[in-house]
């Protein structure tokens, strides 16, 4: 019971960490973890996120037992049916077929482990690169401020402080995003639900981008009908999704273009749509837009920063909140992303 308590504690610590519990735990809790964790085949498979019938260590034991029992059975049958050799032959064929099937499961288990390792490497590479950008801003700015090799004006120093603030915010967002991805992938992601006033949320998100909209010379339109009912949602995450869609629209819309945020009630849902007159998404890339780590080639050419995770998280959040997310786009003309959130039962008219 005591050991089990320790195991659960370790798993809880790791659940908040990045992707793969086994490695994450080893790194997170170090030797303590190795001491308290009583390793059994089942806990090992659990840590590898494999079901018992997919887990190579268990399958090898099953196959070992099966082969031993089969040999005994063959021996008994061969003794009993000495004058009918086809019985022994059929038994051997049967054993071979079953061993082959178990072997296939073992190979498939190893393939899953290799795939998990590949995704983990991709994830670590992405996380490190994305975190290094704001970290280099912090490091260089602090050095510039401390060393005094250049006489920066009060205005420039204020700009430094604002940049440090943005870099810190970026890192916080990145870490939140990485934790969300881990929870989505491990099936433990549960968004909060609370009543949200969609109009207020949209105005707040839009205001957040006023400076960059002005600086980019993009015309912004906000259409919110009166009397929109409250919706069910996770306010922090829905705000983040809306801001992500507006941010994408600004990034990929050239100067002189336009962006429209439109809210409307459709049945028992409120629909949020963000439409831009930007570079659009190539048709060939469109099926992959919501895939993790995907960025279309034309987007990468225009904007080097970006992890290809925003829309992946957005879809997971919106779907878990009972809504849906979709888009339409034409390369060179623009894109329109829409998502819906259910109206609270007491507000449905």
């Amino acid at each position, binding site marked *: 019971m005591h050991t089990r308590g320790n195991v659960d504690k370790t798993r809880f610590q790791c659940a908040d960490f990045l992707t793969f519990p086994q490695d994450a735990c080893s790194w997170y809790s170090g030797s303590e973890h190795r001491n308290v964790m009583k390793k059994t085949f089942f806990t090992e498979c659990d840590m590898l996120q494999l079901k018992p019938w997919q887990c190579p260590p268990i399958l090898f034991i099953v196959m070992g037992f099966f082969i031993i029992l089969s040999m005994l059975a063959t021996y008994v049958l061969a003794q009993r049916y000495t004058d009918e050799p086809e019985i022994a032959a059929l038994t051997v064929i049967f054993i071979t077929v079953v061993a082959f099937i178990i072997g296939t499961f073992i190979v498939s288990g190893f393939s899953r482990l290799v795939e998990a390792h590949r995704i983990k490497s991709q994830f670590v590479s992405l996380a490190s*690169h994305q975190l290094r950008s704001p970290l280099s801003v912090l*490091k*260089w*700015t602090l050095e*510039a401020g401390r060393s005094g090799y250049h006489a920066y004006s009060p205005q420039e120093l204020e700009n430094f402080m604002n940049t440090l603030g943005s870099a810190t915010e970026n890192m916080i967002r990145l870490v939140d995003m990485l934790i969300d991805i881990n929870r989505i992938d491990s099936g433990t992601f549960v968004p909060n639900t609370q009543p949200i006033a969609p109009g207020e949320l949209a105005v707040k998100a839009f205001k957040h981008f006023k400076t960059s909209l002005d600086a980019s010379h993009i015309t912004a339109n906000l259409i919110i009908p009166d009397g929109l009912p409250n919706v069910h949602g996770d306010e922090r995450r829905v705000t983040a999704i809306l801001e992500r869609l507006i941010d994408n629209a600004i990034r990929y819309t050239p100067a002189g273009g336009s962006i429209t945020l439109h809210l409307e009630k459709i049945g028992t849902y409120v629909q949020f749509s963000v439409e831009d007159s930007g570079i659009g998404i190539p048709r060939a890339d469109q099926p992959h837009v919501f895939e993790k780590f995907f960025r279309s080639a034309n987007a990468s050419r225009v904007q*080097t920063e970006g992890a290809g995770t925003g829309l992946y998280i957005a879809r997971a959040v919106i779907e878990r909140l009972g809504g849906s997310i979709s888009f339409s786009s034409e390369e060179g003309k623009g894109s329109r992303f829409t998502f819906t959130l259910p109206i609270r039962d007491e507000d449905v008219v």
Partner: protein
Amino acid sequence: MNMEHKSRGVVLVVEDDSFLRKLLCDKLRHEGFELHEAANGQEALDFLKNNLPILMLLDLMMPDVNGLQVLEAVRRDERIKDIPVIVLSNVGEKQTIERIQQLGADDYLIKAHFVLDEIIERITKVLGKRYI
């Protein structure tokens, strides 16, 4: 610091992040280097058409023409192929680093690992190797 290297010509700084470019250039100017700034790969290639910098500090991830494309173009061009190039990026993927080495970059620095003083040291070292 060897002032001789600094008086030989211009250092080309290719960096799309305007804030990082400013910090880097302020530091380099303070150290006595003459600079030309490029905000993307295309600006760098345009500058290289008529100029021969003594060294290029090159970011990798930039819009339109990225750092690898600039490095490839430099090493292909007989006139400018010997320019020392220090790649300054946050990309740490093995494949990218191997490609940079194949293309003959003189050094590769991860921005987040180095302070500006250390970058100046690396620049001086590379210039020292080339001009001794």
